[in-house]
């Protein structure tokens, strides 16, 4: 993974007196989690490929506060939110794109009341819009004909009713898109939401990610597609627990598109 991608920061843009078309909100997982960093890179490659004028906040970005809020720490959430909003408003940000549905939901729904009003898009929505505008071409490439099932992230699907953008992109890859028995608004959680990612589960008889992975395995997929770094981790762990990691890959929609074109 030792390849450098060019990522301009807002501060650099500001110094040049320019404003980018869109702010790419990387998120904590996208910045620090080894698996999620690959998703971040894939998305950046797609942005470059489509000649999107974008920037990141870089060291000025901080956690949106989502896990704190869902854990019940409204103080910490609002402290984070107000700080982030101050930074974003100083840069006069209008449009934000993020590859994390949790950041997406928080920025879109919970920041406006605190003074942070932006047009917020999930990266699958953004890629879909690039596709519609003809700036991005999505071709089957090496995934053509593969069996792929898409796991709906709760914070993209049920929480914000975005079901079609990731599917539209996958269909463009000319793959065989197979739905799990529980999908879209009935999709089962991967088990990471509501701050569960950061703690051991309560006593029970099964892990949620294993239950969800079983749903996915029933479709006999070559690839499980995800749209969230946390879902990605949970599904990857689930596949490992079923000892299927040699035959089934868990990939983000952005990775699928970037890899299909060998970007």
């Amino acid at each position, binding site marked *: 993974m030792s390849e450098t991608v060019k990522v301009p920061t807002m501060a650099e843009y500001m110094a040049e007196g320019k404003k980018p078309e869109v702010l790419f909100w990387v998120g904590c997982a996208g910045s620090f989690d080894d698996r999620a*960093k690959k998703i971040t890179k894939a998305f950046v490659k797609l942005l470059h490929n489509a000649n999107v004028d974008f920037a990141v906040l870089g060291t000025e970005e901080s956690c949106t506060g989502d*896990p*704190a809020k869902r854990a019940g720490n*409204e103080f910490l959430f609002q402290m984070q939110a107000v700080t982030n909003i101050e930074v974003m408003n100083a840069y006069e940000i209008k449009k934000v794109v993020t590859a994390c549905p949790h950041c997406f939901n928080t920025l879109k729904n919970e920041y406006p009341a605190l003074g942070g009003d932006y047009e917020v898009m999930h990266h699958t929505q953004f890629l879909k819009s690039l596709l519609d505008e003809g700036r991005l071409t999505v071709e089957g490439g090496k995934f053509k004909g593969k069996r792929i099932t898409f796991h709906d992230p709760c914070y993209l699907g049920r929480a914000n009713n975005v079901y079609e953008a990731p599917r539209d992109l996958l269909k463009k890859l000319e793959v065989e898109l197979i739905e799990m028995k529980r999908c879209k608004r009935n999709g*089962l959680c991967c088990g990471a939401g509501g701050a569960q990612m950061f703690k051991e589960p309560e006593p*029970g008889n099964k892990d949620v990610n294993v239950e969800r992975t079983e749903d996915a395995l029933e479709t006999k997929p070559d690839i499980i597609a995800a749209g969230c770094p946390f879902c990605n981790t949970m599904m990857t762990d689930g596949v490992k627990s079923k000892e299927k990691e040699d035959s089934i890959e868990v990939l983000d929609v952005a990775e699928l598109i970037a890899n299909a074109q060998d970007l």
Partner: protein
Amino acid sequence: MQYIPNILFVIALVAGIGYFTKNIRKVIRNIRLGKDVDRSDNKGERFKNMAMIALGQSKMVRRPVSGILHIVVYLGFIIINIEVLEIIIDGIFGTHRIFAFLGGFYDFLIASFEILAFLVLVGVILFWIRRNVIKLKRFWNPEMKGWPQNDGNLILYFEMVLMTLFLTMNAADLQLQELGADHYIKAGAYPISQFISPLFNGMSEGSLILLERSAWWLHILGILVFLNYLYFSKHLHILLAFPNTYFGDLNPKGKIDNLDAVTSEVMLMMDPNADPFAAPAEDEEEAEPSTFGASDVTDLNWAQLLNAYTCTECGRCTSECPANQTGKKLSPRKIMMDTRDRLKEVGDNIDKNGSFVDDGKKLLNDYISPEELWACTSCNACVEACPVSISPLSIIIDMRRYLVMEESAAPTELNVMMSNIENNGAPWPFNQMDRVNWSNE
């Protein structure tokens, strides 16, 4: 003497409706114990939701079997109530089938009531079989043990008895009409009870009148008893589903409200011009310090309390809950049942003492344990599943807020996650200065 039945009827009617009204006022009083929340916006969208979800049963049919059976029972309930209007007028004035003058239309009405009554009977029997013979899992979860299970069955028995009485009454009436008995004018069409009627062949006119009158009286008294049973049961949803869908949360499901009390504190902390030693303003001193989050029902808002009274314990939420499916203690239905049980307890306390006297109990711990609250993934499956727009999730989040902000009682790992965010702006212990390192790794 001849007016005794009329008088008895009016007494029963007044008592039945009076007691029901008294209890409904208690329900409204209890709901108003909740904190204020503004749900007066977007009236058009709210009416639309009520029309679609409550009146139109749009979310019920997402599970087709129970959904269609429910529509049959629901339509039967609403339409057969037109017949209750006639029964009430007949009861008060001592008339018999006062609407018979409608002629062919009356035949049509009675025929539809009969068919619906029969379908309701079938539907209710199938519901009973689903609960007691097939034993669908969601009706046998731990929180259903005891009263909730009996409550569900009692409601079904009530409906079976009421429909049977209605059809028996008509069957006896039909016999009497054919005998040309006094008072029993030829009216109505009886597509169902014509098959019951032969059972009474050969009975004397006196016995038939006794049978018809008994069925008539038991039917209307049964309705009044059932009406009053609602308050003590989960069955209030037949009324509250309407206001509850109207007042439902219109925001995207992912949006959790930002606590205003916290916002003002945070803004003060962030304001470089704020004087940290300033004396509180006059009016602030009087105000009760507000608690963050909810430890008891009075910390919840009225919409959440209305949710609790509306819940009819169908368990669709729990059957969709990822935590519950994987054996965790959390059941979103139990969150709603506990909230209602505790609210009733607080209400009874107020009735007994004039105002609430501390009973040493709370919704938190005495009803809902932290283990249940921490098992939630906030995935919104319960909210999506509810056919009447209840949000168990909003109560779970408010109770977590209390645990974390008032009691600092989060699980250790979450405290670690939160101090990471506080110290370095990420849930993991990575330096904020390293946030773009990924670009050249």
